[in-house]
């Protein structure tokens, strides 16, 4: 008996927590929804990174995707905000308490339709946070209308035919000067996990545009947001492995075949090249890649662009490192003498 208990004891991470400590409530999304898979990878990433749940805040807008924060990190504080407005709420929260790690989950409707402006400006300010777009090309929660990332000329039973070109959110992020632009596919859980881990270690806005099929409204083979299309057309730029700060990077790779990008907290992302040469630190290469992937209908996944030289919003604002929420009344309210001094100027 004792032995049985022993072996059953849950594995724990460096802060002594089990995977279960990172789970959320039971999902009310459709069975098979890509979003559920991404939720699991967020759980894995946080667990593997050994972040204490209360050090994370999770945020979202409105949509099926935006519901998902209820289904992961149940021990983290969270904010399910308004449709398209998660970026501003995240900005306020993470500026008020920069010791927290923020992860936002949004949908393609939430980000590319109603939320386009806030998205661009979030990225432009370089607020440190993980920004996940669960991209399914439709509005799931309102039952399948086209979103702004829907395929050109695509036909859906309910929504009709879409005459417009899709918004490319990676390109938008790049245009807005994002220093961490990744694309992935919910059908590739390993890549998703590694990218999320890296994104958590990045001190700036990390955008992950993840194709996340809506099995109910947009999973037909011809849709670029379907599982089958993703599986057939995915073309990973590299094999991605996250290497924690304290681990030596294993040199079991042929030099030249692997790129290492260093993240702000000392950890690294090891990118083992597949296919051809691709340097994610070359901005114009990244732009070109996206433009070509778009033209050739390829799902190029991986870390598309990386630049860790940009100041975070809080640093741009020359803020203290301490959470503003921890300031005491004495620290918040300047002295009586200072008031008298200030008022002298109005005499």
């Amino acid at each position: 008996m004792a032995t049985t208990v022993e072996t059953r004891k849950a594995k724990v991470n460096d802060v002594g927590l089990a995977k279960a400590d990172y789970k959320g409530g039971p999902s009310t999304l459709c069975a098979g929804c890509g979003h559920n898979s991404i939720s699991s990878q967020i759980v894995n990433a946080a667990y593997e990174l050994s972040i204490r749940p209360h050090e994370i805040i999770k945020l979202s807008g409105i949509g099926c995707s935006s519901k998902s924060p209820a289904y992961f990190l149940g021990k983290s504080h969270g904010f399910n905000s308004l449709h398209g407005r998660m970026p501003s709420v995240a900005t306020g929260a993470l500026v008020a308490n920069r010791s927290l790690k923020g992860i936002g989950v949004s949908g393609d409707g939430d980000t590319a339709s109603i939320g386009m402006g806030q998205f661009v400006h979030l990225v432009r300010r370089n607020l440190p946070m993980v920004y996940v777009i669960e991209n399914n090309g439709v509005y799931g929660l309102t039952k399948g209308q086209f979103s702004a990332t829907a395929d050109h000329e695509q036909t859906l039973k309910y929504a009709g035919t879409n005459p417009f070109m899709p918004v490319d959110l990676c390109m938008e992020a790049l245009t807005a000067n994002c220093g961490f632009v990744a694309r992935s596919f919910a059908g590739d859980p390993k890549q998703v996990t590694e990218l999320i881990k890296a994104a958590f270690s990045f001190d700036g806005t990390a955008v992950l545009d993840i194709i996340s099929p809506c099995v109910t409204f947009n999973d037909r083979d011809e849709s670029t947001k379907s599982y089958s299309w993703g599986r057939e057309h995915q073309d990973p730029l590299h094999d991605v492995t996250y290497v924690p700060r304290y681990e030596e990077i294993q040199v079991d790779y042929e030099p030249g075949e692997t790129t290492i990008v260093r993240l702000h907290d000392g950890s690294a992302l090891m990118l083992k090249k597949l296919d051809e040469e691709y340097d994610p630190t070359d901005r114009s290469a990244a732009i070109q890649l996206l433009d070509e992937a778009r033209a050739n209908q390829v799902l190029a996944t991986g870390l598309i662009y990386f630049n860790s030289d940009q100041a975070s919003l809080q640093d741009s604002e020359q803020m203290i490192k301490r959470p503003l929420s921890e300031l005491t009344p004495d620290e918040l309210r300047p002295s009586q003498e200072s008031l008298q001094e200030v008022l002298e100027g109005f005499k």
Partner: protein
Amino acid sequence: MTENSTRAKALVNDFSMVVATVNGSGSQTSNLALVRALFRMGIPVSGKNLFPSNIQGLPTWYTIRASGDGHTARRESVEILVAMNVTTFTEDHAGISEGGACFYADHLPKPQARAGIVYYPMPIKDLVKEVSPPKDLKEYVANMAYVGIVSEMLGIDLEAVRGALMTHFHDREKPVELNMGMIRLAAEWAKQNLEKQDPYRVEADNKTKGKILIEGNTAGALGAIYGGVSFASWYPITPASSFADAVRQYLPQLRKENGKNTYAVIQAEDELSAIGMAIGAGWAGARSMTSTSGPGISLMAEFVGLAFFAEIPIVIWDVQRMGPSTGLPTRTSQGDVMFVRYLGHGDTKNVILLPGSVAECFEFGWRAFDVAERLQSPVFVLSDLDLGMNLWMSDPFDYPDEPMDRGKVLTAEQLEEIGEFARYRDVDGDGIAYRTLPGNEHPLAPWFVRGTGHNEHAEYSERPDDWERNMERLMRKADSARDLIPAPVLSGSGEARVGLIYYGSTESAVREACDRLTEQLELDTLRLRAVPFNSDVKQFIEDHEVLCVLEMNTDGQMHKLLQLEVPERATRLRSLTQNNGLPLTARWIAESLVDLVGG
């Protein structure tokens, strides 16, 4: 005799002077120099800028009122005109009161002279030529010329003018001396060439001793700072921008730690984002605010509903301008009362503070945070352009006399002790539940903020009983608000037949109107300082036979809110409104009151 002596007295330290210039010509420095000089001479004074929504070229009028009696509201009469703008000269000239004085740049074509007006031509161009300033400063320097001439003719002390400029230029001698050069020259010219013929003049007095001269936006910003603001987001908009400017100006000197900021002030990309940021910061435990005006309020509606319903503390400072729509961006109004009260779809009811003076802008600046954090809800402060952007005299502001109230926030230690936590449970019966802040490491602490229906544990719920219970609690909370917010200010014997209810920037005009009316109409007054209303308001309505609600909007918005509050007295409440972009005058108030309720 009495009549006569009153009149004689009135001519000293009692006039409205209008300086008519062209927007963007740099006359602001000149006008402020005159206002501050009078102030330094101990004469009660106010300065009101009537400016166009334009950067350069359109007419603008600056009104300086000196009043030995301490009345500083706008008044209709213009005793002294300083005419620097050709396009409005005819109209401005027609507006001078009987017996007034007209200073005018002598290169302007002078309208047909009016009997009883004294004319003082000013050789502005020649005077400017004499000091030969750099070309791009010519217009600016020209304005200093009228400062010199007017000072000389009214008896404004040039040393006081110099002191005013020192304030303006933050004690930098060089620009001050440059300006004083022109001013002295012009004064000297006036002394040599003009003969005093009008009766208006100033005499040093001691009525401004210890006082300050400040704009409401600056006062409010300082209030917010002394309230411990740690997060402010904003988007530029007239007439609210100078609120954020002042926050940005004073915080760096008051809130640093090892050279770093213990705050953040973020210019958002629009008002939707500004309030979203403020809400995020309020959730995360900052003292958080945003400042805006009407169009921004409209854009904030959805987020305000969220903050109301999810119970996130934030302060929204609304410097009201004339609406609907883009309206008149540079004109004052009190038109957002009704809209703000019910802002957000569904059943929302927002708390509003109503400062009536720059001192209250300061006080409500800090107090609003206490109310917001205590109530865990958005708190609006409704100022307006007149109060916010014009110069008002005030006693120096009192340092907050109450400890900071951070509301019902549970720490990890407290949670450990209590052993349970339900975010939306009414533990104390006041409708206000306890909250925890993100980062709180206790396992009980986390909750999920949502604008969707929720149970006590902040979990999504569509259950009818959960919805009802939560709304009942929110209504209970709305009631609790009544006693947490500033009580109204009463004045009068309490025995008068007529009660006047008013609020906000009309305070100065109302006080002056009351003084005017003492003989004619016995009045008690009640100045509202917040919505919802407390029991004093009901009592005041109960106690008066005739009640008049005075405000600057078209629809009588506060009148409506009061009628709803006291339906049994709804017909007693009469509405008195004027809403044309100009601050109210005591004369209009007094006359309208007499008309409305009988002398």
